[in-house]
């Protein structure tokens, strides 16, 4: 199962670098989805490793939370875009000052 866990680690790293470097809020969200998916892969791999379905149930819950998170996050992005005409994370900096 080690290769699966390694792949999951690599995907998680790529997702975290994407969150830190990309400026478009929607792409940042996609990278968060990538990280969640990577953790799901690790959970499913460990479920097979231990012969236990708990990992799969947890991955299922992660998917539910990811769906709810995407709905709210995209609604927030749409609201910001409606008022500021921009989906860039750098433009939403009012709280800074």
């Amino acid at each position, binding site marked *: 199962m080690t290769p699966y866990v390694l792949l999951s680690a690599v995907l998680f790293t790529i997702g975290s670098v994407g969150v830190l470097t990309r400026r478009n809020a929607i792409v940042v969200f996609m990278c968060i989805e990538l990280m969640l998916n990577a953790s799901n892969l690790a959970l499913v791999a460990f479920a*097979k490793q231990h012969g236990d379905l708990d990992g799969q149930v947890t991955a299922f819950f992660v998917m539910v939370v990811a769906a709810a998170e995407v709905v709210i996050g995209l609604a927030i992005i*749409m609201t910001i875009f409606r008022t500021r005409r921009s989906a860039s994370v750098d433009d939403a900096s009012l709280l800074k000052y």
Partner: protein
Amino acid sequence: MNTFWVLAPVMVLAALGILFVRKAVHAALLLAIVMIGLACLYLSLNAPFLALVQIAVYMGAILMLFLFVLMLVGVDAADSVVETIKGQRFLAVLGGLILGALLVVGLSQMSLGAVVGLDDANAPGNIPALADLLFSKYVFAFEVTSALLITAAVGAMVLAHRERLEPKPTQASLAAQRMQDYALSGKHPGPLPTPGVFARHNAVDTPALLPDGTAAEASVSRVLAARGTVRSAPAMAGDIADIERQLGEAPHAGRDQTAAATTEEEAPATTNRDEEAPTS
């Protein structure tokens, strides 16, 4: 394991592509590749239910939601490359490399032991076994999930809701506005002219002809005009000449004069009947 070695490079490449492509739509499509690969990996890991949920929820719902939002925000919303914090990109990549190296080295040092496999756990079938767990051991988490989903639905509704600041325009007010526009600027109060219907073309990209043989620009959609797919009147006159040649003889003697008249103008002239006379 063959599935894994085929899919893993594709998935890593697609995930890396998300970091480098400029357009958000391309990133969404690359993410779709990663998710399909993950679904296949779930199948090979004895998790058919999760594979189907991955396809249905992630591909069907979440990625579609991403694409919808991209359409609303603007498909060509490219990323800016301006660094707002100095050295942030370099530090992020460095930190990512360190994190990746740490995880990969640490995980490859680790010995996981023999794989137990899911044959016993999946004995009654994957979905019945998952359902047993979900409704016994994890039933509280399952119930809390419903609260989460309701909160998300209400939150999305609240965020997407917009208060109406001005009264909704009624049919009477719209008609009054139209007549006022006509009185002030001479804008034609009636509907726009329909697209033209000719010998070979009854498509919406064919402008109608005015009585003097020129094309009525208002008869085709502005979107088509912006894309540059509107057939101009001279081109159509060429079509008419083609058809007449195919028929062998000109069935309408008068049509030739019209065609000759329109071919002389390169671009269809803007003869807007609306602009001519601001009456009264």
